[in-house]
């Protein structure tokens, strides 16, 4: 992480007022993002926040950068297309647990594999906030607060870090909305990491899951250096309680598209190339 430069995080907030419930964890994520952008003195004009649909996914409009608020579950695909087309941009994709792990699960899997150089922040409140509190993939099996699943979803919760690892994500961290400073540091590191960096944020939904205020007592910072081998990390992610925060795993590997490809593209003579393609069609 670069030396912090004197840019105020506030200057990274847009004029649009967030319309989250007071006490929503997503406010901290917004703060952490603007803090990280300020710390890196990021060029606003060259940064894009991309999201899907959900309370969490409303975040891009609140940041003074370019933003794309897409459809439910597809933010990661938009972000990857954007980054590949415009490799010089800083691209941050974000969304909720419903957006990213339920409807967006397939893109999550394949983004981890593909390893395009961007940041993905999943704001996990174990619930569909926006649609009034149904169970998400990370909801505890016996959470019976939704009329849609009155006895609880009855399904083993989704383990975002374990899935990301199995799918091939090279950089995996966990943060907590109660600790925005740690989160900001992790976001800044993620931006600087060359590859797909995944931050799983425990971000409470005060309205539909007030019980999540108990997270404060459970969350624990992992002090060991990040694991750098997938099979070891797998044990951690499958056996632990899911509340360890910090940078958990880091094992850089080839990004997509191959950097050579990006470089080669810069020097093409488009007209010559088009003429050659046309010539190949000549019948005689």
């Amino acid at each position, binding site marked *: 992480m670069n030396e912090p430069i004197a840019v105020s995080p506030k200057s990274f907030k847009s004029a649009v007022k967030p319309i989250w419930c007071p006490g929503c964890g997503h406010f901290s994520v917004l703060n952490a993002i603007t803090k990280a952008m300020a710390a890196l003195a990021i060029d606003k004009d060259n940064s894009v926040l991309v999201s899907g649909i959900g309370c969490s996914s*409303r975040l891009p409009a609140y940041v003074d950068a370019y933003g794309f608020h897409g459809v439910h579950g597809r933010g990661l695909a938009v972000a990857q297309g*954007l980054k590949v087309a415009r490799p010089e941009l800083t691209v941050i994709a974000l969304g909720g647990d419903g957006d990213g792990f339920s409807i967006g699960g*397939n*893109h999550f899997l394949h983004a981890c594999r593909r390893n395009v150089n961007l940041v993905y922040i999943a704001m996990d409140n174990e619930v569909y906030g926006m649609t009034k509190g149904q169970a998400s993939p990370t909801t505890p099996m016996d959470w019976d607060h939704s009329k849609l699943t009155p006895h609880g979803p009855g399904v083993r919760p989704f383990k975002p870090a374990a899935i990301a690892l199995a799918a091939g994500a090279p950089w995996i961290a966990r943060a907590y909305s109660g600790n925005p400073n740690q989160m900001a540091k992790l976001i800044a590191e993620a931006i600087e990491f060359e590859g797909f960096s995944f931050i799983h944020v425990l971000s409470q939904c005060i309205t539909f899951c007030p019980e999540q205020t108990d997270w404060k007592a459970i969350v624990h910072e992992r002090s060991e250096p990040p694991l750098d081998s997938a099979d070891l990390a797998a044990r951690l992610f499958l056996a632990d309680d899911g509340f360890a925060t910090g940078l958990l795993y880091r094992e850089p590997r080839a990004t997509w598209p191959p950097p050579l490809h990006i470089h080669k593209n*810069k020097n093409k003579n488009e007209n010559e190339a088009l003429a050659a393609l046309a010539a190949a069609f000549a019948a*005689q």
Partner: protein
Amino acid sequence: MGDTQLSIAITGAGGAGVISCGELLLKAWARCGGRGLLRKAFGPQIRGGEAAALLKFTDHERYTAAGRYDIIVALDWVNFDRFQDEIIAGPDTVVICEDSERIPASLRGLPVIHHAFAQLASSSHPEGRMNMVAAGLLGHLLRLPMSALLEQALAKLANKPEAYRDGARACIASGYAASKDIDRPLPARDASGAWCLTGNQAAGFGALSAGVRFAAAYPITPASDALEWLAGGLEAVGGHLMQAEDELAAINMTIGAAFGGVPAFTATSGPGLALMSESLGLAVASETPLTLLNVMRGGPSTGIPTKSEQADLDIALHGLHGDAPHLVLAALDIPDCASATAWAVQLAQALQVPAIVLSDQFLGQSTAVVAPPRLPAALAAAEPTPSTTDEYLRYRLTASGVSTLAHPGDADARYTADGLEHNERGTPSARASDHREQLDKRRRKLESFDYGPDWGRCVGKGDTALVSFGSASAALDEAAARLAEQGAPVRTVALRLLSPLPVSGLELALAGCSRVVVVEQNHSAQLYHYLKGRLDLPLESLAIPGPVPLNPHTIAEAVGARQDA
């Protein structure tokens, strides 16, 4: 301009290489100045099923498939049988086959030439293949020099082991030698400067020429080869093709690249278009330009993936939820796959909207020898209405409906694009006035644009008109030629722009007609109902589903018959 044609059908098992044989013949023919078309027909599945190379050699450009075949070559009868409805013999058809004992009923009584493909192949070379024997045989019938055949065969096998090339050489030679002459006039071979390509390749080329530098791809028959061609094409010009995990990702990657300011493209077929429809709506609402090529196949559902039909018009026009105006175009013939796609890219960029280009399996996968496609001149950049405020308003209400589109990297124009309804600034809004204004704006930019004369192709005069879109248009033109010969000239109107519908152009083109017959290759008369819903004209419907190509003769008869009735 004469009108000599020779049509040849070659059928075999999926792996027997009849398509390669057809390609070899067409390319060698083209190389010697000939014109022609190769239609590819497959069974319901790509592998293990049946295949047919359906060749038409002509002395001028003709984009319809042959209705009857002068020569039918059957490597075996089981696979020929599966094309019963598609490969029709005429009274003078010559049948060439290995097994002259089991000729199917539909071909009985026709002259038969027995040809021992299998035996010749294996005796010529250990790597010998029947399809190369057939190529030699037919090459001789077409009076092509053996060198032209060998040139194509060796080019195709350039990266294969030497033995394969030796095998091809030997088989072509033995087929050539064994060929018996049949007495058929051959079309003149006097073309020069022609191109030889498929509609899918043409579409890729059109996209690239109009500036596309990003494509996202999920394979699907019969669109994959457009994407495959583009993978190489984009690399050559310095762009990127991303293979996506599914169509949902493909369309959203396309949107992402387009939002970044890079003209972006994807291609698919019916099932994929259905999956993309939600996010096409996002492109409409966020005003993100992109071009989507939809290569139609038989439907509904998985349907008949390898065969042609024009049944995705409804979903292309009306498949988005909410009021979501967008562009729909159709390529009229193989070279027009390039022109229409290039135009679509230009329009999409100029109007900040998704454009769907309809093609179909026939156009997309047939190979034709044609004059180089005409590419549209660059559109005059729309003059942006000057802003009255300093502030950048992404969705500013302008007279044209088009607002200035900033891209990441542009200084001081930061905004968040949104699929939620929004105000001019882009801030989400549920207010009725904002909604109404943005709905009006999004419709206005499409409806007030001047598309010029390229909206369609209008030919001929007459009291009766035939109207169609896409690949049906070629059949229309041939039907019109027949009707003219019979002294009943008709007008034909082929639509390249389907949405927004060029109502005034159409009304002008059809003015004074007492009959307007809407011809299309589907079951539910999709174009007919669409036009009837928007025009006050005396429309009739002639809708014939696939997978057999529309037959000009049938159309001429239907129109003529009704004229009499």
